[in-house]
């Protein structure tokens, strides 16, 4: 597998955009320096959000003509960090600042069986993989889970293209994805140790699959996933960060990340991936009023439960329904010397 992890910036023009599903826009970009985007790649865009330059990552759904046309699928997130709202406002002809394809979710070769699991908009990371597996003649299953058919992008197209290999689960039809049986079925199959799963979706779904995967003692490296740190246990809320050593408190709006808010407030913090993977921006937690919605994949589950630390780039404080009676926003006190 070719893995391009190099990030370089270029301009791209919006060639087309239209609606894929309720709240999901299809955006076709034509970059200045086209490079074919392999399955699993994403591009980063630098967006101007409320006067701040923010980087946002979007999976490449389709790469055509050697990368001259790159298709993205963008869902308008109700608790958007601002990126999706901006993306939904793009018009044909607009110019965006973008990277070339970046690969951190490569599709392997040679597995006996592949299971692709898409939760909601996570399908955008898996469409190209499914097409490639079909072309290869590989044994694969594409699992699509969503709240309702109206919001599930590419649903009809995928069913038409992949036929019996697609399994559809829709919450509002009461046909729900049962993670235990999905993973149990893999564990019981002859190809268990040589089955690879690729998943992209809400963090709660991915956490459940990760737990089931571990319970069945399936090989950890065969479970592949990608997250841009954009979903959590609860919807994003406004909250407050207290920094006693700096004698400051910073308010984090529901559209902003804690890291963005701290940087906007002039606090100098170290970070790298900005999507909850690397752990560089991990800081100690001194106190919490409410709950921590970690949203990262760096801390282990036991580490998350201790509330001892969090990753600034994706973690949030939340009332999370527990303190629904309280009018005060949730708060977290951090050790930031």
């Amino acid at each position: 597998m070719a893995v391009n992890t190099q990030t370089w910036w270029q301009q791209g023009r919006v060639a087309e955009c239209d609606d894929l599903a309720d709240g999901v826009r299809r955006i076709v970009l034509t970059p200045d320096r086209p490079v074919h985007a392999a399955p699993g790649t994403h591009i980063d865009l630098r967006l101007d959000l409320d006067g701040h330059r923010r980087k946002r990552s979007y999976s490449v759904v389709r790469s055509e003509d050697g990368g001259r046309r790159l298709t993205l699928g963008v869902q308008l997130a109700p608790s958007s960090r601002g990126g999706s709202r901006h993306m939904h406002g793009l018009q044909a002809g607009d110019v965006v600042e973008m990277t070339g394809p970046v690969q951190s979710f490569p599709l392997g070769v040679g597995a006996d069986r592949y299971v692709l699991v898409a939760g909601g908009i996570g399908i955008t990371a898996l469409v190209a993989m499914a097409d490639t597996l079909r072309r290869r003649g590989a044994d694969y299953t594409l699992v699509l889970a969503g709240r309702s058919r109206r919001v599930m992008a590419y649903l009809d197209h995928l069913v038409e293209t992949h036929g019996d290999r697609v399994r559809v689960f829709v919450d509002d039809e009461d046909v729900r994805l049962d993670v235990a049986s999905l993973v149990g079925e893999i564990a019981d199959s002859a190809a268990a140790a040589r089955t690879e799963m690729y998943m992209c979706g809400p963090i709660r779904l991915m956490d459940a699959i990760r737990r089931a995967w571990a319970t069945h003692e399936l090989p950890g490296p065969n479970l592949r996933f990608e997250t841009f740190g954009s979903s959590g246990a609860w919807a994003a809320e406004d909250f407050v960060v207290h920094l006693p050593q700096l004698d400051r408190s910073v308010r984090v709006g529901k559209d902003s990340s804690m890291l963005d808010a701290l940087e906007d407030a002039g606090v100098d913090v170290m970070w790298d991936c900005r999507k909850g993977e690397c752990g560089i921006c991990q800081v100690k937690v001194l106190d919490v009023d409410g709950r921590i919605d970690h949203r990262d994949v760096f801390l282990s589950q036991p580490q998350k439960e201790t509330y001892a630390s969090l990753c600034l780039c994706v973690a949030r404080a939340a009332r999370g329904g527990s303190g629904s009676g309280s009018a005060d926003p949730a708060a977290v006190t951090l050790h930031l010397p």
Partner: protein
Amino acid sequence: MTVLDSPPTTAAAKIFNFPRNAWYVAAWDHEVTAKQPLARTVAGVPLALWRNSDGRAVALADACWHRLAPLSKGKLLGDEIQCPYHGLRYNSAGRCTSMPAQETINPSAVVPSYPVVERYRYVWVWVGDPDLADPDTVPDMHQMDSPDWAGDGETIYAPCNYQLILDNLMDLTHEEFVHSSSIGQDELSEAEFDVSHTDRGVTVTRWMRDIDAPPFWLKNMRDKFPGFTGKVDRWQIIHFEAPSTIRIDVGVAKAGTGAPEGDRSQGVNGFVMNTITPETARTSHYFWAFMRNYRLDSQTITTQLRQGVHGVFGEDEEMLAAQQQAIDANPDHEFYSLNIDAGGMWVRRILDRMLQAEGLPAAAAAAAK
């Protein structure tokens, strides 16, 4: 029939680019072990090669995901390789299985893993688009491990562009001048030759009838026919298969016994097996072997032939290195072609089309070292 959708280039690029979508030999089978990783660069891609406990050969990019330290300097721990710098571990698919000082593994921690096929005593690697890697397209080198053939070979580390080696092998007129003490003879440049080609192959055929056997061939004839004297019919049939494998069907038979018509029973036959793997634009690994179809049980002859060809190819190596130096010292001078270059020029055209299909130029980037 090939339809020309773009005019073929006639100019011969001096530093020829190499296709990525192709099988190249990374190593002899015995070089790749379960004991320690082997570092080798194939078509510009540095690789760490080793064997799993089930014997399967593995090729990963030779750079740790973290800070790009070469994995080939690391240790093999079971079926995993451990980075020598910070101890990250990877399985044979290139997935990180262990990271220091954290309880989880970063999901993006992967190093590229490349398709590998083991065939004909070689480990072949595909560094291009893995979805195009079809094991059926590994070039035919079946004499390497056929029970009907015996022999052995070596690797030459050649400080030149791979295409110069292909040129060398596609025209054997040079034997008369470079190898005058072993296989060269005047008749080489006097004999006519035929060139034919397909989409992926070129064949150059040359017969020299009723001539004296040069020293190398006289010795081989006497191995099979003790005390042989007399004239021979000599053949050289060069088979190129893209991108860089050349098998040369060579031999001599007692003159007039029907070898040109197909009866080689009164002669000795060898196959010079050559496959060249570009390392960089200016360096190559040249894997060769000499296989014969007589006296199969004689290790003595195997050793003598290997040593003999080693000497002959040493003369080529010297010439190729000197040629590359002269090319680099004369950047403003172009190549000209002779009639004898027809085979080599067909090779260039086939490679040029492969490069065009990959969107790559025929000339390697000037900056490439």
